């Protein structure tokens, strides 16, 4: 397999885009959550929330629910990045790297299931 400048820059472009989007999204939501937290009268209790409670909480302007969403967005960023590289390697037909991406996804999944 010969190194290809064009493939290389395209991969860089998409990966950079995904990472930047993840950063901007999670940062804005986290910032909003912190501002709401500071403004909330008497502070907000830091309780553990289920996905449903987070959705409800965001609708009610609960700062902790907004912060939780920001944290989830941040955690999802590297996962989306792996999925992006996987997609690019599939399109470019590079079995070695498809395998590596799948292996990483599998290990992450295993760690989550076992943990």
């Amino acid at each position, binding site marked *: *397999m*010969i*190194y290809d*400048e064009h493939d*290389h*820059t395209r*991969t*860089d472009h998409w*990966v*950079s885009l995904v*990472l*930047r989007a*993840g*950063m901007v999204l*999670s*940062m804005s939501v*986290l*910032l909003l*959550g*912190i501002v709401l*937290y500071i403004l909330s009268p008497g502070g907000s209790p*830091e309780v*553990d929330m289920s996905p449903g409670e987070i959705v409800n909480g965001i609708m009610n302007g609960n700062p*902790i629910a907004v*912060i*939780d969403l*920001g*944290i*989830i967005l*941040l*955690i999802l*960023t*590297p*996962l989306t*990045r*792996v999925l992006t*590289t996987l997609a690019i*390697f599939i399109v470019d037909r590079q079995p*070695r*790297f498809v395998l*590596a*991406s799948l*292996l*990483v996804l599998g*290990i*992450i999944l*295993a*760690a*989550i299931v*076992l*943990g």
Partner: protein
Amino acid sequence: MDLLLALGVIIIAILAGIVGSMFGIGGGIIIIPALTIALGLPIKDAIGASLIGVIATSTGAASRFVGQGIVNIRLGMILEPATAIGSMVGAVLAVYLDQYILSAVFAVLLVYSSYYMLRRPEAAVNDERCVEYLNCTYCDPVTKERVNYNVRNLGKGLLASFFAGNMSGMLGVGGGIVKVPAMNVWMGVPMRAATATSNFMIGVTALAGAVVLYANGLISPVLAALVALGVFAGTTLGPRVARRTAGPTLRRYFAVIMLGVAVLMLVKAAGFEVGI
């Protein structure tokens, strides 16, 4: 959380973001001891916030370094499975191994690697045994020259990545601090590309741990949010400083950071609480 404490957390996170993004080491090594010893926060909260901080460092730094074409994405993707498996094995082994002895051994290893990096200049390799599909190129922002480099010793690199995962699984530190020298010294990857590629990888290594902690309610939201925001601020600065720093200088600073981590590990081995 009172205002002074929040301010302390943000300052620590900004520093961790700068140093972590400059050197590809995540910054957990700064966040955890600083939060626990300097601010007196519980270790459990510090670990969760630190994992979120590592993901933020990786995201913020890699988005810039990938955009500048410095990250070797293929090399990162090939090494990532070894690191991930290593950290799982490490987490299991941690139960059986003595943390103090482990810290001492790790410290000795760091001192040796640091000595090696300080004594020997970086040598470009034109090895026939290089792994052709991993060879890469980037434009150095300081010298303005295009750097083409060959990657060799993939086997050793995979082993080092596995070991790096082990260390982070067992001690909670050591991902980047092992991977960067391994890529640089063994695999022939220039320092700038090695640190950028490590930045790219660490987010994925921290991901599984972060999901597990989050699902178990072990991530304190406000603390984690402050750390993430501070780190993001830091990662806007770190890569800029790195851009102005010559590769060999970056390498020397890295060696000094390794010595600092070694000291921390020795303090831990001597039985003092350092939070990691």
